[in-house]
């Protein structure tokens, strides 16, 4: 799909070159991750599968897991749709505008997650800009409660995660050979058919990469849903946090974390499978 240029000359040296990074990953990622998994079976010492059984039969943790994955899915879908068309707007813009749009997309990246989440509370609270504007316009009399709702979490997380979709989409679009679009037009496809039948399939890998990134990040989101969401929007990260911070229960926290990891991997595998089937083995013409 995407043409990858392999530079043969470099392949021989590359395993050595990534060694420092691999070492770093092992020390700061794989070992802690392994510890978490091990503790889910050994805390308390005779736990075995007990932590898993308890977590999987506990309606609270199941509900929180549901919150997490539902929200991650909604946010991913929204972010991919908005981010793809944002990147498309960049693609279609003149260079000056393009840089402005890229800058606008990246600007929030350079502020901390906490600040961005708080910014949304300022916008969405009862006395916030949004409600003030609607009241000022005479559209509503009483402020609409927006904060501490699923709506607020969705809006906040989608906005915060958008750059993770925009960047890979834009990268894929920038690589599209304009000649293919001309070819499509010359073969009888109008601008709309060219977009859906040529441009979208060519850039879909970028969107898929963005979707994967967004989904993984969204599942692990903590600050934003806690700040913007109501009781029904609390993510599984909250349960893990309280298990560790309030009860020192590393076993439960480890089991929850491991289950989330497994679920993410399975969902991603299923997602890739669907994508691969959609784009690689289409019905013969």
């Amino acid at each position: 799909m995407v043409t990858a240029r392999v530079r043969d000359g470099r392949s021989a040296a590359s395993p050595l070159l990534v060694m420092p990074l691999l070492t770093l990953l092992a020390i700061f990622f794989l070992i802690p991750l392994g510890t978490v998994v091990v503790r889910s079976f050994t805390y308390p010492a005779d736990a075995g599968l007990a932590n898993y059984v308890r977590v999987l039969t506990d309606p609270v943790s199941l509900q929180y897991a549901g919150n997490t994955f539902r929200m991650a899915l909604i946010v991913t879908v929204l972010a991919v749709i908005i981010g793809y068309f944002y990147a498309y707007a960049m693609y279609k813009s003149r260079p000056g505008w393009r840089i402005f749009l890229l800058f606008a997309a990246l600007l929030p990246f350079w502020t901390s997650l906490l600040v961005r989440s708080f910014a949304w509370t300022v916008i969405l609270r009862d006395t916030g800009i949004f409600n003030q504007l609607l009241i000022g316009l005479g559209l509503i009399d009483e402020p609409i409660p927006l904060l501490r709702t699923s709506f607020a979490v969705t809006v906040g997380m989608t906005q915060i995660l958008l750059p993770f979709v925009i960047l890979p989409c834009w990268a894929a679009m920038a690589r599209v050979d304009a000649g293919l679009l001309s070819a499509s037009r010359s073969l009888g496809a109008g601008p709309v058919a060219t977009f859906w039948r040529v441009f979208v399939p060519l850039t879909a890998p970028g969107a898929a990469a963005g979707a994967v990134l967004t989904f993984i990040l969204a599942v692990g989101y903590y600050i934003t849903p806690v700040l913007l969401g109501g009781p029904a929007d609390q993510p599984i990260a909250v349960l893990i946090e309280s298990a560790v911070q309030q009860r020192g229960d590393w076993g439960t926290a480890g089991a929850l974390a491991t289950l989330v990891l497994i679920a993410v991997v399975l969902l991603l595998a299923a997602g890739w499978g669907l994508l691969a089937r959609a784009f690689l083995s289409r019905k013969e013409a």
Partner: protein
Amino acid sequence: MAIDATSVTLRSVTKSYGQAIAVEGIDLTINRGEFVSMLGPSGSGKTTTLKMIAGFEAPNSGQITFDGDDVTNVAPEKRNIGVVFQNYSLFPHLTVGQNVAFPLKMRKVPAAERAKRVADALALVELAGYERRRPDSLSGGQQQRVAIARALVFEPSLLVMDEPLGALDRRLREVMQLEIKALHERLGVTVIYVTHDQEEALTMSDRIVVFSQGRVEQVGTPREIYDEPATEFVADFVGESLALTAAWTGTDVVAENVGGLSIAAPDLPTGPVRVLWRPHAISLEPISDAHEIHVRARVLTSGYAGGVVRARIALPTHDEGIVSIPAVGGDYTTGASIDLYLRADRAIVVPTDGRATPSDLEASPSDMEASPNTLEAFGADHG
């Protein structure tokens, strides 16, 4: 395939990008079923002209018609033109069969008929059975054949090719040239073929349009372009030649240190001219029954080029040129003299245009057979 070929007319078509004028005042008529090459160096406006004919660009002024219908502002998908691009432009996300079926799908051809026509089109370019292959698993020549099949499968009335063989190696290019020519003869479709390769244009075309600096320099059959170039540019760009700087006085063509050339009076206003000879009009020895102009050239540098010695020579007129001399005649080292006999009846006289020579742009080696009495030459204009 039943192709209903179209004629194409351009009337004072002009296109500029900001301050830069890409083509200016192009007038051109291409007849139904004709194979016309647009030849010129890069930046000469040939590709811009092709893009306007295909509908990828709109002219700033002027008119383009197909069979008399104005298509100047018609979208490319509504022009029914097959376009073949230099880099093939096959859709990498589709198989060969899906690529070729694409224009039929866009025209809502039913699936059963589609499959049959795809198979026919692939058979036409000798790729029968390649439907399920991916474009990137094919060689460059095969990919270009798929592109041609895709451009022909919907029976367009015009086939436009933008340097379609530019990315192929020389041997394959020559094979494909003949294949494309054969397809044209079989299908009768009007072909507009853009190239910067003068040999390709000479081999394939019914007529050649020579472009230079956004204008049409000359339109003619390959023979006319080669034997009767209208301008110094065309003479230099198409084919090889040896050129002398001279002056047309109204009664005689006179060259410095050579004197009156006693050649047929050119139909030109008096003034500086260039007199050119094609390789077949230059000999190393006099031929008794022909009137010839004798010039003695001095070798500046030379090198063996396989069967021939390629020498840069200085002419008495202070012109320089490059000739290929059969290697059997001597080694022609620096400082050696060569006697050249230029046939008066084959002299080509063109007005001096004072422009940079295109020979630097187009230095394709010649494979012409060299007989002992014939020189291959192409002008290096330092006059």
